[in-house]
């Protein structure tokens, strides 16, 4: 953690209201968008973000300053987002859930990406967005942390509390799922 962040945390611990505001302002965009990416709902994302910051500021004394603050905040936000999905589905959900990772991965007979798939990547944001929304929640979380937040693999592992190897496997599978969905949509879709 950088010196500025350490100082921000120290001021928050001293109940400095300006520091509270600084922390919320620095992370509100990323937290809202992570929650939105996982829950798929702007209302749920707003609720998750509010609860995330309340928890962060109330439990800052338990935070280990040697770890990245961003990762700690995202961990709280992603767990709260999973709680929302859990309530919705009325079934346990976790980032360690591997039940849907048993599907086929790389098919050696697969001819690989053709020119059509490249074209389909030019789809509008809405169409691409709809395709991402079909991925299971832990794949959505991982692609968001990797490509939107540009987190390195080890930080993703720490944030989602999963082994580093699982991060690699899941990112690979997320790419494969997207690729298969693009192929399945056909050229006219």
């Amino acid at each position, binding site marked *: 953690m950088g010196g500025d962040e350490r100082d921000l945390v120290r001021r928050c611990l001293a*109940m400095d*209201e300006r520091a*509270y*505001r600084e922390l*919320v*302002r620095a992370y*509100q*965009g990323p937290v*809202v*968008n992570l929650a*939105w990416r996982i829950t798929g709902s*702007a209302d749920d*994302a*707003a609720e998750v*973000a*509010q609860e995330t*910051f*309340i928890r962060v*500021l*109330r439990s800052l004394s338990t935070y280990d300053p040697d770890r990245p603050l961003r990762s700690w905040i995202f961990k709280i936000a992603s767990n709260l987002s999973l709680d929302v999905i859990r309530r919705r589905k009325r079934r346990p959900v976790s980032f360690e859930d591997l039940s849907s990772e048993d599907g086929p*991965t*790389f098919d*050696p007979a697969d001819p*690989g*990406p053709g020119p059509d*798939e*490249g074209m389909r*990547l030019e789809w509008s*944001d809405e169409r*691409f*967005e709809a395709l*991402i929304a079909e991925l299971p929640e832990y794949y959505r979380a991982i*692609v*968001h942390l*990797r*490509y*939107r937040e*540009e987190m*390195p*693999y080890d930080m993703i592992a720490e944030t989602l509390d999963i082994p580093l190897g699982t991060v*690699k496997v899941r*990112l*690979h599978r997320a*790419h494969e799922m*997207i*690729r298969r969905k693009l192929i399945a949509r056909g050229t006219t879709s």
Partner: protein
Amino acid sequence: MKSNLTCDACERELVAYADGALHAAVARVMEQHLDDCARCRASLEFHRAIAGRLATLPGIPVPPGLEERVLRAVAGPRRAALRWKRASAAALAASFAATIGGIAFWPRLAALWGLPDPASALARGIDSGVESMIAIPKRLAVDVAFYEPIVRQVCRSLDALGSVPHAVLLSLRSPEAQAAGVMLLSLGVALYLLLRPSTRKEGGIGHACLAL
């Protein structure tokens, strides 16, 4: 240079390779395969394009009022707690000052208002009040000795009801807890006796306070 990496193995590592997350030695082997294999090169480009698309997808704006709602929830109770702490500290200091002032100036005030001599009637009144206050813990001590076997009996019957009330009662019934209670009580009484305004003995701390 030819590598013996298969396309299958290369494909499994392609995303991590595109993300720059592979060990340098593994990345070198991948590069050798990619130099020779057009299919894996096309696949790599495709993964890169997906990553680029994911990175630039638009997000949603921050909901209005989020910062204020968080601050109300977090800073509100803390501010109130801080105010309460300060107010009670001030009240304590004020009452302490008033007590000391009262003790110091009471004889003069009593003479001024024509009240009975503090060294006689008032002091005796305070004394008897204190005597009766001391009598309460004394009675309590006797009562504790009396009720202790009964509490023990209640504990035994509560044992059947579960471990939580049992644990609480167990801590109450331990000789250490009882000893601590008795010690605290006697410390309070001793402190009072030491500091109370003495009417019978010259040179006590109370007397010194009266002489201020």
